[in-house]
């Protein structure tokens, strides 16, 4: 890339960062207005708590930010990857729960064959593969039978949820007393030393954050996704399908294969999210046998949108969402409802749509300027000649 191209890419990045910042400011302003409307006396302190986010809880709070960001990064990637291919993966919820069950089942049953230190890895792989298989179903329906991926994904969410409930109740991972899955201590994701960094002291008692090595896995997968999308022929073909299906078909790209693989990869990412969430030690998350779709899957949509479907952007947007959600958690001390955070995030997403437009406008102005200066330079050259 020549110097000019690099500069303009840097400029575009700067504009998009600036427009995201504006969207965030508008979101916070709306949040402040709501705080004022509910209880004016505490509003300024409340805003401070929201902005401080994870810092409210010291090192433990920051650890919690990383902990909650881990599945958000992966579901965000899952949705964003499909956006790049022109598909809307609304089935992340089902892929996540199917993956989680497969991970738990392998974690509980594969012990005789797999050495204990690697059990979590086998379980996580199983979760990823099961999620990928679940994502491949709408992929097949879309590419072979022309079934709209949105409807196939919605149906697969419910089929997956009821199916997992059925399988849990009829397998050895069921704890009927608590109506949830059993303890996964033996196959838990390793802490990777993070619990010794992110903790706070309660007297002489060490109050460690739930963060674990999963955050590294999520980051690695984000980088891998970025490489696949930007540095491989396969990624190029997927993006081409997303930009113009007909043109890429005309150019000889196998669009059906792209659709299938894109949804399968997205499913794998969501399945990994499920594995990282539920392969947790004693006191961690368990799958509750209830008839509600897993919310984390749907939370991937705003994360992907805020991150503009860019894998690196998604890391930051997931961290941001987890950070501000922590602010909502601590906001309850001032007797505000934590739901205000979701309203703020919704406003930010809404205004990020405006921000995109602003960026396009800036881009158009810049290219107009470049054209004009180009013309002037040509004019000078003509004059000299």
């Amino acid at each position: 890339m020549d110097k000019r191209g690099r500069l303009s890419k840097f400029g575009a990045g700067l504009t998009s960062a600036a427009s995201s910042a504006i969207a965030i400011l508008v979101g916070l302003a709306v949040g402040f207005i709501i705080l004022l409307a509910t209880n004016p006396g505490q509003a300024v302190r409340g805003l401070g708590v929201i902005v401080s986010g994870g810092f409210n809880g010291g090192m433990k709070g920051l650890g919690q930010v990383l902990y909650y960001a881990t599945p958000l990064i992966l579901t965000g990637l899952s949705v964003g990857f499909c956006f790049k291919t022109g598909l809307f993966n609304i089935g992340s919820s089902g892929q996540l729960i199917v993956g989680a069950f497969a991970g738990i089942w392998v974690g509980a049953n594969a012990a005789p064959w797999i050495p204990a230190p690697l059990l979590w890895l086998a379980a996580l792989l199983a979760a990823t593969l099961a999620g990928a298989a679940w994502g491949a179903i709408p992929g097949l329906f879309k590419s072979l039978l022309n079934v709209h991926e949105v409807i196939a994904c919605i149906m697969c969410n419910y089929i997956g949820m009821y199916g997992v409930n059925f399988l849990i109740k009829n397998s050895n991972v069921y704890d009927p007393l608590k109506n949830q899955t059993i303890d996964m201590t033996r196959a838990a994701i390793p802490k990777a030393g993070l619990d010794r960094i992110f903790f706070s002291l309660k007297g002489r008692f060490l109050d460690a954050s739930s963060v674990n090595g999963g955050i590294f896995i999520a980051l690695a997968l984000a980088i891998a996704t970025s490489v696949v999308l930007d540095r491989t022929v396969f990624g190029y073909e997927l993006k081409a399908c997303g930009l113009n299906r007909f043109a890429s078909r005309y150019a000889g790209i196998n669009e059906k294969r792209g659709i299938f693989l894109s949804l399968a990869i997205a499913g794998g990412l969501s399945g990994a999210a499920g594995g990282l969430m539920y392969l947790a030690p004693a006191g961690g998350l368990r799958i509750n046998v209830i008839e509600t779709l897993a919310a984390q899957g749907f939370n991937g949509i705003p994360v992907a949108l805020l991150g503009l479907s860019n894998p690196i952007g998604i890391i930051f947007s997931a961290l941001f969402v987890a950070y501000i959600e922590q602010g909502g958690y601590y906001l309850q001390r001032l007797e505000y409802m934590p739901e205000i955070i979701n309203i703020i995030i919704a406003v930010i997403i809404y205004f990020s749509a405006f921000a995109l437009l602003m960026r396009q406008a800036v881009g158009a102005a810049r290219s107009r300027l470049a054209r004009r200066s180009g013309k002037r330079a040509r004019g000078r050259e003509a004059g000299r000649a």
Partner: protein
Amino acid sequence: MSESTGAWPIIVFLIQQMWYFSIPLLIVALGGMFSERSGVVNIALEGIMVIGAFTSLFLINRLQDTMSGQGLLCLALLAAAVSGTLFTLPHAYASINLRSDQTISGTALNMAAPAIAIYVARTFQENHVQQVMFRNTFRLASAPILGDIPFVGPLLFRNAYLTTYIGFAILIVSYIVLYKTRFGLRLRACGEHPQAADSVGVNVYRTRYAGVLISGALAGIGGLVFVIPTSTDFNATVSGYGFLALAVLIFGQWRPLRIFLAALFFGLMKTIASAYSGVPALKTLPIPSDIYKMAPYAATLAALALTSKRSQAPRASGEPYDQGSR
């Protein structure tokens, strides 16, 4: 077949239950149809249902000591339609005037709706809980005269709600509006080829606004219609019915009568799944309840696999219209 023996009472029971599932899906999917046929994808149906249901049930909660029955229900329906329309305005503005990605504003509305419902409920209710309780005084045990018609009476006019008939009315009106009026023709043109519509003098922006706002009103109504027969409190959720309505809309191929059939199909499957233990023939089968509950979704997927080969969304749906790039 006499009315009191054999399978007849069970069929009557199933059909009466079916309306509770089918009618809200029908109303919301028809709403989505108006939006998508005008060229704007509306994935915010879920959020709009939540707001419509919340506003109207909060109103019922406040007024139920002074009013009851069908009068209150009509007032609540009005509130649901108005709140749904207002809540949809930002989506219309972003996707029509600003030409932004229609998934973004839809997702924002879906995210905001339950948060707003919970926040308002917990802030303004005396007990600070998020559930909005209401007394169901709206059921018609038997409609006068009509309930006594043989066969049709028990199926349609007993244990029913006014909302069922409103659903039918919306279906008929939607069909007429879409296919028999000038507005409907323009709406469809804007969803298929807005440039062509504009070139013959149709105001694409205004027509799309109409489509999106109609979808808001109908989704708002659908939220209320969904909650009333199935619950006595509202907990800031419509259990994914907005997304199911989206599925019914696609299953119904963006056409009113097919949407009706799709809603009936899904409603019937859903009824069987939730009421199978009341049907002797099904109860004795060795099928676990989770499999029954899964069946409506699996059956829909299978039906789609068989019918989607030639499926085609409105051509311009999801694409912002830019007059300058004509």
